[in-house]
């Protein structure tokens, strides 16, 4: 792009400033940085235009030159432009220095490998030390301002790269002692000194004579980057967070300078402080912050050096100076401020916080400082705002709130008043005397009166609620404050129901101390005046917040009366919102009637549907489930259907969710009795479960479908009675049962889980025959035995015995089925296998390791199962 005119540039810069991101995304964005650098050397543009181009580069280097390489190139170009300037006075030298510094520091290009850095640093140091750099650097008249500018540039570089000037401390000291400009040199020296001390302390090194080395890096010689690299890119806060007067986290305590170094250090600090009156007030304040934090915790460096400055500083009204004194107070505490000094400082601060000659923002800042005052002996918990001990009621008298205050001023002063009231808690209220608490009550009443103004600005209402919140926050334990506050707020609601959103917000944020009584008061306030009312929608909004299980009949009465007036969709929804709150609170009686009535009478079909839904929910869900289904909050019904919104809320709750198995199911000891086989199930759970339903399915239709088993509640660690599962086999065969569990979690969700399949063994199906007639057991058995043939089957097999012998084996496994026994050698066993099979065993003439078993059944399919069973007995435990 060719050279641009002044007007074009003005337009371009204007467009850029309006929205840098939009401009850079546009067609001209890419070239802007390059064009700008080129135009600086154009002879057609005036200096003023060039200054405005440089001003842009001072503000937006990251947009113009987005990476380190571009920043390096830009800085190089700026430096080239600087040295090419003709030797006459020019307004460009200063901004060029600032721009090159900014480009390097902001563009992350500053470092030993950067050519531009290697050029800029010696140049700045040369200018700062007032060396004659030749005609290229302008006439003598420009030297002084350039010297100051160079110091500022060096200070900025040192801020961004601590330790950069560690090697120049001696030089800077000597310059300050000569005739250099006091302010720029003082600030530069103070910063470099502070950074050096911190870096050396971290490296556990001494000052190593840095304070006295007066020589200057030779022109063109290498810059000393050692300290800056030791700082390891740790940016040093110029003022780390306080209070930390006693802490040694800044690490300076480990730096123990030698006596000689300590003397030099003291001399340097004294030199800086002695000439500090020549600095502007804001620069003095910076110097004090820097030196304060430089010497904090440094052994052998008593802070008494600061003492001569204090009286002078305490008399001023300058915000930065008083703030700097507070910083010294925080840094040194008792070492610098005796108890009397502390009292004086506190008085000056109190005075400044109310002095009519100072502006409001200053008052508020001083008030903040009072409540965060770094006391010598703090009593209260740290980190909380408290009134300092020495700040008695007398001192505070002028700091108390008044209705004439601005909102933030009122809140700030109100906070102080609350703190006084909290301290005052124990003291008796003295008759007519206007105690702070009484005053607080009057003030809150005044605020409520203003908030009650119809048509008044919302800010007044907001202020009233903020004040109430602040009071509750500070004085939650004082009924003498909270009771009138509750009544006052209820009256405010009566006067201006349109403040309902503020009340809802307040109830959301205060604890039960105010919340509970306020809920009750507001509910009574609303329900005591049923009927047509302009403020019905506000009443309903309040009720949906405060309606609970208490006094439901009054609330329901109000709603019934209100229903007739709820003619539009919004009001109907608000009404149903209250019903919803009542549903959640477990109000049942009366509500069902109301919901039914609403489901019939509401004009809007959406409202009717929603009422019907609530009615159905109320009729079908138990209280806790209902609470969960409707809670915790419904997104405000958007669009036209409140049902859709409602569904989003509880569809998940009403649906059954798939969940991992939360329980273990096992088959317990057999219980061979009754008409059908019954499995005894044992359950262990990992978490509390409610309304558990276990469903079983038999694979292969071997048994008739099984009924579900219900358990109301299962708790981990608490044993549960065994569950009985009756089986109705269609064939006498073992099977696998697939098990599913349905249950409710403590969170109210209904879940569904698959459990591992449950095996039903052959032996689980055994039932004894009805008892044989007493006399003739043998005959009974023989009769059964004979009846098996010819349709049935017969077999003989060898049943191995374990070490326990036949008697124990029978006792353990077959006892309920033994018909005739001749222990220990002979047992006749009859087993009924539902639905209609029988298995008869004769175990006779046992030998050492086994017993021959004669076996008959009327169902040939049982034979192999019986064989397997008998052969496995000895192995079974």
């Amino acid at each position: 792009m060719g050279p641009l005119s002044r007007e074009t540039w003005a337009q371009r810069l204007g467009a850029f400033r309006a929205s840098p991101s939009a401009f850079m995304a546009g067609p001209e964005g890419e070239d802007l940085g390059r064009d700008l650098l080129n135009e600086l050397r154009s002879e057609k543009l005036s200096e003023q235009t060039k200054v405005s181009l440089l001003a842009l580069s001072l503000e937006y280097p990251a947009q113009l030159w987005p990476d380190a390489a571009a920043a390096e190139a830009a800085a190089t170009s700026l430096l080239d432009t600087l040295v090419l300037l003709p030797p006459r006075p020019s307004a460009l030298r200063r901004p060029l220095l600032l721009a090159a510094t900014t480009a390097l520091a902001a563009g992350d290009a500053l470092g030993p490998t950067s050519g531009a850095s290697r050029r800029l640093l010696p140049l700045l140091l040369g200018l700062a030390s007032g060396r004659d750099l030749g005609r290229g650097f302008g006439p003598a008249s420009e030297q002084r301002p350039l010297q100051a500018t160079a110091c500022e540039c060096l200070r900025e570089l040192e801020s961004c790269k601590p330790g950069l000037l560690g090697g120049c401390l001696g030089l800077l000291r000597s310059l300050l002692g000569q005739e250099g400009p006091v302010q720029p040199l003082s600030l530069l020296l103070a910063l470099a000194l502070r950074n050096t001390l911190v870096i050396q302390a971290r490296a556990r090194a001494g000052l190593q004579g840095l304070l006295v080395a007066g020589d200057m890096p030779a022109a063109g010689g290498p810059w000393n980057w050692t300290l800056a690299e030791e700082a390891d890119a740790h940016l040093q806060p110029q003022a780390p967070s306080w209070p930390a007067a006693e802490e040694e986290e800044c690490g300076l305590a480990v730096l123990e300078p030698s006596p000689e170094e300590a003397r030099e250090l003291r001399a340097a600090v004294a030199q800086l402080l002695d000439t500090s009156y020549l600095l502007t007030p804001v620069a003095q304040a910076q110097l004090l912050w820097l030196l304060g934090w430089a010497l904090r915790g440094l052994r052998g460096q008593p802070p008494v050096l600061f003492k001569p400055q204090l009286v002078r500083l305490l008399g001023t009204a300058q915000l930065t100076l008083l703030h700097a004194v507070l910083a010294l107070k925080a840094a040194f505490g008792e070492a610098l401020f005796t108890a009397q000094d502390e009292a004086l400082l506190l008085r000056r601060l109190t005075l400044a916080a109310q002095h009519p000659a100072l502006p409001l923002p200053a008052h508020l800042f001083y008030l903040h400082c009072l409540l965060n005052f770094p006391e010598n002996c703090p009593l209260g918990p740290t980190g909380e705002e408290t009134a300092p001990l020495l700040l008695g009621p007398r001192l505070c008298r002028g700091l108390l709130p008044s209705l004439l205050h601005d909102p933030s001023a009122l809140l700030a002063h109100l906070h102080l008043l609350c703190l006084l009231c909290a301290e005052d808690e124990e003291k008796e209220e003295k008759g007519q005397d206007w105690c702070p608490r009484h005053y607080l009550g009057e003030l809150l009443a005044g605020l409520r009166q203003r908030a009650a103004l119809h048509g008044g600005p919302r800010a007044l209402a907001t202020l009233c609620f903020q004040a109430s919140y602040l009071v509750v926050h500070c004085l939650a334990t004082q009924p003498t404050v909270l009771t009138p506050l509750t009544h006052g707020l209820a009256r405010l609601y009566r006067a201006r129901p349109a403040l309902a959103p503020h009340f809802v917000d307040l109830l959301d944020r205060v604890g039960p101390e105010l919340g509970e009584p306020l809920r009750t008061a507001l509910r009574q306030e609303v329900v005591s005046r049923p009927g047509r009312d302009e403020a019905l929608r506000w009443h309903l909004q309040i009720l949906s917040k405060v309606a609970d299980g208490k006094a439901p009949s009054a609330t329901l009465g109000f709603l019934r009366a209100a229903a007739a007036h709820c003619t539009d969709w919004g009001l109907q929804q608000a009404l149903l919102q209250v019903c919803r709150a009542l549903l959640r609170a477990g109000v049942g009686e009366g509500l069902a009637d109301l919901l039914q009535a609403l489901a019939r009478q509401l004009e809007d079909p959406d409202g009717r549907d929603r009422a019907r839904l609530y009615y159905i929910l109320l009729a079908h869900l138990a209280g806790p489930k209902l609470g969960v289904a409707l809670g915790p909050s419904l997104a405000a019904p958007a669009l036209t259907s409140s049902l859709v919104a409602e569904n989003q809320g509880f569809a998940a709750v009403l649906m059954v969710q798939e969940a991992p198995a939360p329980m273990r199911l096992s088959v317990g000891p057999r219980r061979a009795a009754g008409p059908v086989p019954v499995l005894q199930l044992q359950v262990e759970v990992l978490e509390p479960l409610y309304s558990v339903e276990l469903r079983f399915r038999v694979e292969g239709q071997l048994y008739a479908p099984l009924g579900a088993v219900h358990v109301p509640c299962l708790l981990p660690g608490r044993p549960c009675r065994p569950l009985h599962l009756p089986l109705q086999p269609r064939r006498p065969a073992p099977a696998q049962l697939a098990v599913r569990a349905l249950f409710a979690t403590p969170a109210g969700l209904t879940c569904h889980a698959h459990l591992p399949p449950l095996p039903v063994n052959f032996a689980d199906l055994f039932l004894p025959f009805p008892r044989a007639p007493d006399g003739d057991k043998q005959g009974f058995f023989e009769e059964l035995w004979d009846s098996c043939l010819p349709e049935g089957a017969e077999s003989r097999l060898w049943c191995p015995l374990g070490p326990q012998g036949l008697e124990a084996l029978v006792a353990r496994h077959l006892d309920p089925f033994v018909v005739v026994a001749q222990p220990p050698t002979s047992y006749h066993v009859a087993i009924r296998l539902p639905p209609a099979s029988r298995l008869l065993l004769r175990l006779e003439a046992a030998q050492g390791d086994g017993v021959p078993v004669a076996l008959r059944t009327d169902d040939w399919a049982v034979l192999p199962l019986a064989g397997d069973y008998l052969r496995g007995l000895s192995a079974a435990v």
Partner: protein
Amino acid sequence: MAQRAVWLISHEPGTPLCGTVRFSRRYPTVEKRARVFNGTSYVPIPEDGPFLKALLFELRLLDDDKDFVESRDSCSHINKTSVYGLLVGGGELWPVVAFLKNNMIYACVPLVEQTLSPRPPLISISGISQSFELLFGIQDFLHLGQKNDTELNTKLNQLPDLLLQACPFGTLLDANLQNSLDSINFASVTHPQKQPAWKVGTYKGKPQVSISITEKVKSMQYDKQDIADTWQVVGAVTCKCDLEGIMPNVTISLSLPTNGSPLQDILVHPCVTSLDSAILTSSSIDAMDDSAFSGPYKFPFTPPLESFNLCYYTSQVPVPPILGFYQMKEEEIQVKITVNLKLHESVKNNFEFCEARIPFYNRGPITHVEYKVSFGQLEVFREKSLLIWIIGQKFPKSMEISLSGTVTFGAKSHEKQPFDEICIGGTAYLKLHFKILDYTLTGCYADQHSVQVFASGKPKINTHRKLISSDYYIWNSKAPAPITYGSLLL
């Protein structure tokens, strides 16, 4: 201790955006440090458009406060200082120092050299007080002698150059921007050794020292049994020292006549080199007694070139200069008023002007007034619902004057009549405006002969004094009135 950015925004209610960014300046090297120091809690400085919107919203200066907005109106969203958090770009930009003055919003964001979460207390942030000084400095510069929009624009156009001088890298070097302006102009002067940074050149010409004492008296009068009237004098001593030499030393003594009221709560300019401890400790917080230090109050200092406020003080004079009562009773659409004012005999009865303004808030326009004044004239501003009783230059010999009358109002129309949040129902006030030249209520004066100047040549010394009223309210004694805690301590 530096600033990340600074803005000046004119507040323009009624326009679509409600404001315009008139000036902004960002400091990228500071921003880079902020990113490192703030870590994960870092929120970048937004562009002007989003900043304007977020700031006006937070300061409640948008025209849309009809509805409750939680992020602004919640009761727990409490701001007790002029420091705000702004929701921009998904994060919260904090701390934003901002205040509104004369329809201009002054705002800047100081660097916080640590993480912002949890928020450190403001007192621990060194850049906060610097923010205030920068903004106060800009405010002083813009309003010093500024009379119209053209002058304001001229000054706004000078700001970029001035800040390049006073705050080149975001670290404020001098809050006195006029000084920076001078230093640009003085650039060719060679600076001798030990030139103070707050004095950019030296004066050449006839030596003279001007001392001007301005006392403002404010008062709240209730005419009630259980509420005490309050009044207070606030003094400001302004100096302009045209003296040759780099560091001329000057001592000014303020004196009181024998029955004068002691000066208290004295705040001095930073150029004052030393301060007597009696001056430092004399405070309105303490109970007054006869032992109170009553001067002379000596202020040794090295003056800057420009005019400056040498000191401020307050004082508790024994009686208010004008004591009065105001009675207002509502009777349907009209009110009956009675006013009585009495000038104290000790006060100089020679005003530059004296008038009582009687506003009627939250009512319709005045349709009819019947009145009787014992002295002066009454002017009626019907549309503004305001009466002004012009008392003139002197009270009559009796020192006591009265006004009584009946004011009738028309129907209230919301737009035109003034709304006031204090004056509800019978709560009403009249406000006195007066000025007396060559007089101070405390009696405080700067004796020409007591001014010591250690500089070449004997300077001419000019002294001026004046008393003006400021917030001088007399409340309707027939209705509740806002009180301060001080009024309750009878």
